[in-house]
């Protein structure tokens, strides 16, 4: 550890009174956007996401072959899998299929898992958080206790338990990941709403006689969504990685031929010594896609967090 010249050297402009007074929300949003554009992390993240989503959406046009087409089986010998060529950009897998096409279609699966599990988890979680935050009182107590209990099981384990219970299918993977996300979103939204409820503008609205529901839906909820979006972005990344972990444990879609990154990565371990590239491609794909969402999410968080603003 360095012995710094002066510990307070990284303080911002010395507690000067000139900086740091409350800003209106609208300003904060556009301000955040501006900061986001300047942040290279955000730009890289956004680019990765664009590529990922683009590949997923346009997979049939990008991939030269069907992901299950094993027409090139005769070119394969044990431990010797043809490498990149003009016809097969990333070579052929041990079962005579085009690796590039499988990778491209794999983006679809990953995106599907990520988006569906996020959508379900976030919707239910936000709903629960809303319930607790809006009603308060015993509803809040009961709901939050439940959330605490759900959070007392480590996330991956929770997902494993649910996927194992539901059996081997893509749906059960998505449900498993979604369920893990529910308490996270519930707690997040409820915390936000509690904070917002005490905010000046809410007190003002209440003093103007606007109903509780009105306040919640017109004021509190929209203002609570920023952290939900941040969390959502990060959750997408986690979903992709978690799906890979579940696939490793044999908890993934029922069709082993389906091009799914986690499964491709797991299956490639068999030939890790003779053909490490087969593991590397899906591995990198998972890392890059997840990294894209993580980078964007973290930049968003930093851009939107007034405390971290420098």
């Amino acid at each position, binding site marked *: 550890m360095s012995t710094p010249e002066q510990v307070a050297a990284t303080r911002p402009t010395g507690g000067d009174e000139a900086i740091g007074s409350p800003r209106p929300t609208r300003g904060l949003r556009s301000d955040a956007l501006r900061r986001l554009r300047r942040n290279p992390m955000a730009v890289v993240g956004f680019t990765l996401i664009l590529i990922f989503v683009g590949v997923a959406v346009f997979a049939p046009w990008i991939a030269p072959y069907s992901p299950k087409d094993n027409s090139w*089986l005769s070119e394969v010998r044990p431990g010797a899998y043809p490498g990149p060529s003009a016809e097969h950009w990333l070579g052929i897998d041990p079962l005579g299929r085009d690796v590039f096409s499988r990778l491209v279609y794999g983006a679809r699966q990953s995106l599907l898992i990520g988006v569906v599990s996020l959508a379900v988890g976030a919707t239910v979680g936000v709903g629960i958080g809303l319930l607790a935050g809006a009603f308060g009182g015993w509803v809040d107590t009961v709901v939050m206790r439940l959330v605490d209990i759900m959070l007392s099981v480590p996330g991956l384990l929770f997902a494993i338990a649910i996927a194992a219970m539901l059996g081997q299918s893509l749906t059960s993977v998505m449900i498993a990941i979604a369920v893990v996300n529910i308490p996270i979103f519930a707690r997040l939204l409820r915390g936000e709403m509690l904070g917002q409820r005490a905010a000046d503008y809410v007190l003002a609205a209440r003093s103007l006689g606007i109903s509780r529901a009105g306040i919640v839906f017109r004021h509190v909820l929209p203002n609570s969504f920023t952290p939900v979006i941040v969390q959502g972005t990060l959750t997408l990344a986690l979903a992709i990685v978690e799906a890979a972990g579940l696939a490793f444990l044999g908890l993934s879609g029922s069709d082993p031929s389906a091009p799914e990154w986690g499964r491709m990565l797991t299956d490639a371990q068999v030939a890790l010594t003779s053909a490490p590239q087969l593991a590397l491609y899906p591995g990198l794909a998972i890392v890059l896609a997840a990294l894209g969402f993580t980078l964007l999410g973290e930049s968003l968080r930093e851009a939107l967090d007034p405390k971290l603003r420098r």
Partner: protein
Amino acid sequence: MRVYGRFGRIIALSATAGLLAAAAGCSGSDSTEDGDRKTFVFGASDDPKTLDPAYVSDGESFRVIFQVYETLVALKPGTTEVVPSLATDWTVSDDGLTYTFNLAKGVTFHDGEAFNATAVCYNFDRWYNFKGAQQNGDISYYWQTIFGGFATRDSDSAPESSRYASCEATEDSVATLRLTQPSSALLSGLVLPAFSIASPKAIEEGGTDITVTGDSIAYSGGFGTKVVAGTGPFKFVSWDRGERLILDANENYREGRPQLDQVIFRPIADATARMQALQAGEIDAYEGVAAADIEAVKNVGQVVERPAFNVGYVGMNQKVPLLQNRKIREAIAYALNREGLLKAAYPEGAEVANQFLPPSQWGYNSAITGYSYDPERARQLVAESGETNLTVEFWYPANVSRPYMPNPQAVYESFAADLEKVGFTVVPKTVPWTPDYLQSIQADGKGQLFLLGWSGDYADPDNFVGTFFRETTAQFNLTDPGIQGLLNRALAETDQATRQKQYEEVNQLIFDYIPGVPFVHNRPLLALGKNVVGYQPSPVSLEYFKIVNIEG
């Protein structure tokens, strides 16, 4: 509470291990390697279930038991030839009902007890008197296969009658075994590790309690898990589940002390991980070399193959209407690219199968050729079949490696792609191998298309085709008077030449009927370290470590 008891037992076990080590004259530091000690580390795919020989039928348990215990008769290494072992010689009465075994003299069990006819008969009586859960087909499989039933019948699934009549210690070193009916398979059967002779004292002291709850078998007795004593070349030292099982050379082994000082079984489930452990020098041998790893293994050691005495096949359940259509079955036979799969994913020695019998088995019909890969023909047959709904379930076992099918999922994926190419819609179905898969396919007949295979127990064609088709089994659900009649006639036939003809004929009938598509006769591979010598692969996977040595 249980946890404390367990702690106490660990200490007791350690103490026992220490005593044994001291008794064996193994002095010096406990964990440091003694350069002079010759250690052979075998990378197993799993822990043994238990070392009580009578309770198991799986390869990993057998491998260890085979080194610790001995049977009355044994196999000549690398063959299926029956040779003397604990019985130096034997006579069989003319009616085939009385076996008189002359036993080796001066042999002691690892616990110091004397080996004699009383000990032999103690073991036979123990097996015959199995009760309750012990009569479960999973637990006493080989007793039931060779001897049939028990003294009392406690389980509906147990055989009704027993071939076993009695065992008598007519002299101290003469054991007389009496049967109720003759059995030509008896001597071949007695070589199986399941009929290992264990020390009666160890059995008594350890206890052989067992409880079966559904699928789960609890070996709660101490014999086989904590107390182990046979007469074999190696004796049990300690067992740290999931980590290692240690055997030491038996200084008093009747054939002389083995060359190895100790044998260690290290469980590593994943074949790639075993290969890496071999590369890193952590283990000296392992079973189940993946075809893709052959070159890598050869760089650091040797690859040896067991003779191909197996068959892998895609079964077709005749219960399924779609598969009752012969055109569809033929289409499937033409659609599967067996040769392509074998070339891409099997070791070089693997042969494309066209019948359910391995070529080395008499009765094999070498005149049969056909159903070569022809997707065009398959499509045409599908069109001719008149079937419109071409959706079919295709079952394969998960997370298992079989001698004829090192990677079932790869086989499934390859064949499923072949089938989809000619117009089928394949629905994947998979469950774990034991017990779910075997249960689903063999007992419940849930399979439609399914992957399965067979490794021969003994050298008779009936062990293959008879097992599959002589009776109407749940897995194939085949009822065909022609095939079944011929198989029954062949089994009863005593003239070898006629039998051979009959089996060749039946193979042609089966080939024409297509109750399934055999696709491989594989040669299972073993990896050995560079300095391992004397390892003799066995067609029935029973290999003696007593003849193995580490050089240099």
